[in-house]
């Protein structure tokens, strides 16, 4: 491909409750992106309702694609390829994005590519001007995942550790619900924790007193519930104790992963990476270990189409694309199965 050619990739994200569309170009990088968040729709049910999520995606994707193209002053004919989230995620939600993406690509006569949602999060810091250099350790923490990954190159991933039960973000949301903070309660819990006293309660740091890089957060959530039953007036102190314990656990595991790999770069991504207390703690650890710590900008910590456009772009440029026109999704898909670029 000529270096003069400005290849443009459309990215479609629909793995859970956010409809995200992004456009990434060889010359300009990210040129436009939009998001429709369904948070308010699911809030009244206390969690994501998969069927409602699918019903929203099918109403939102095409209008958002049109808006993003208009934002970038581009036409469909300018697209070089279409990337879509094929997994992991909610099957019904993934299928809507995959079906629109593949039929649009088929109609335009361009390539489509299935993208791994977590690779999107993993590489989201590459959307920033200051980018991490590989190899690095990545901490992916969201409502659906808690992973520590050895990133040797694009597509060369080894999972070093993962949550054996609740994801970190899930534990934040569930604990927030216990404290009556609504859904999604992670950010509300973090805000309440700012008013709490760290010395009032001491929560456990799960799985830190033994070797290994796996996590477990459900016990911490149960500990919060039991503490709340005994001390219903101490919501802020419980929120603080929960947040401190979660963050310290994540920090201990990050330190171990960095020591184990010998890498000098840490990337932190996923919805929980928006938590400012976590960032502060990891920045201090980074300074102590002489490790550079990278985060995506706040809006790219949660699900978005920009990261899917980016990953799709990197892979499409290397000649990777779906091998057939079947509309397939992979609700369960390991990062370790991906092809190297």
């Amino acid at each position, binding site marked *: 491909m000529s270096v003069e050619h400005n290849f443009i990739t459309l990215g479609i994200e629909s793995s859970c409750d956010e409809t995200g569309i992004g456009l990434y170009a060889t010359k300009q990088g990210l040129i436009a992106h939009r998001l429709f968040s369904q948070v308010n729709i699911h809030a*009244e049910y*206390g969690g994501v309702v998969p069927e409602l999520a699918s*019903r929203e995606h*099918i109403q939102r*994707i095409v209008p958002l694609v049109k808006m993003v193209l208009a934002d970038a002053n581009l036409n469909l004919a300018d697209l070089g390829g279409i990337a879509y989230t094929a997994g992991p995620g909610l099957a019904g939600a993934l299928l809507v994005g995959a079906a629109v*993406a593949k*039929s649009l*690509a088929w109609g335009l006569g361009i390539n489509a590519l299935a993208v791994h949602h977590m690779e999107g999060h993993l590489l989201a810091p590459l959307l920033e001007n200051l980018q991490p250099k590989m190899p690095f350790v990545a901490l992916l923490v969201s409502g659906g995942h808690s992973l520590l990954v050895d990133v040797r190159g694009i597509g060369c991933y080894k999972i070093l550790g993962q949550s054996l039960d609740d994801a970190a973000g899930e534990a934040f949301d569930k604990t927030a619900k216990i404290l009556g903070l609504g859904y999604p309660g992670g950010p509300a819990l973090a805000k309440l924790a700012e008013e709490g006293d760290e010395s009032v309660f001491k929560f456990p740091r799960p799985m830190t007193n033994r070797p290994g890089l796996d996590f477990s957060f459900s016990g911490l959530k149960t500990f919060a519930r039991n503490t709340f039953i005994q001390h219903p007036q101490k919501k802020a102190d419980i929120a603080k104790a929960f947040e401190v314990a979660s963050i310290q656990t994540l920090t201990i595991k990050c330190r171990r992963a960095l020591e184990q790999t010998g890498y000098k770069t840490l990337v932190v991504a996923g919805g929980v990476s928006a938590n400012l207390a976590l960032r502060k703690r990891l920045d201090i650890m980074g300074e102590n270990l002489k490790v550079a710590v990278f985060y995506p900008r706040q809006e790219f910590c949660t699900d978005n189409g920009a990261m899917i456009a980016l990953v799709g772009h990197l892979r499409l440029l290397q000649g990777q694309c779906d091998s057939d026109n079947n509309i397939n999704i992979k609700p369960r898909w390991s990062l370790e199965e991906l092809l190297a670029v």
Partner: protein
Amino acid sequence: MNLLAIDTCTEVCSVSLSAGGVKISRFVKDVDKKSGLILPLCDEVFAKVGIGVSELDGIIYTRGPGTFTGVRMCVAVAQGLSLASAIPTLGFSTLEVIGFGAAKKYNTQKIAVALDARMGEVYWGVYENAKLQSEVLKKPNAVTKLSADFIGVGTGWGVYQSELLKQTKVSKFKADFYPQAQNLIELYLRKNNTFNNKLPLPKYLRNNIVQKSLK
């Protein structure tokens, strides 16, 4: 007129392409992940007829009811293909295309369509005098009372045979009867319909899908 019709709303998947007096159709049944095959089937019919998507005058699709995933697959593909070349579309009820197909096959104007909607209910439509009179989600013992000269079609007649026969007084039925894309094209032409540029959207009939949290 160059017309493409697609359906993935039930247990089957079908496409039909009509152009220059030629109509090529594909129908797939009992295949795993059948609706994911819709684009390869489109590949086949476009290659046979020798035109491209951009040469279409319109896309006809089933917009439900049916399995939620199947309905969305069909509508999403209609959205994608339509968007690619700004092709106008028109959606028909799955019950209407089944009723139309059955009326043609059995040479009658009285068809009772029942699709299994799970959870003890059926998607119910009465197709009479070349028109779908209504489409509703009903318990089998609460559907319209009919007469013995109606013919029942659709998967609901297999699952709720005794309840439907008792309630409707219908005496003959064929449960193994599905929508076909080629009938969508005939339906479109016969009714002198017009395409539109609106976003294709599903019609589920079942909309009470979740209860609000009590907390």
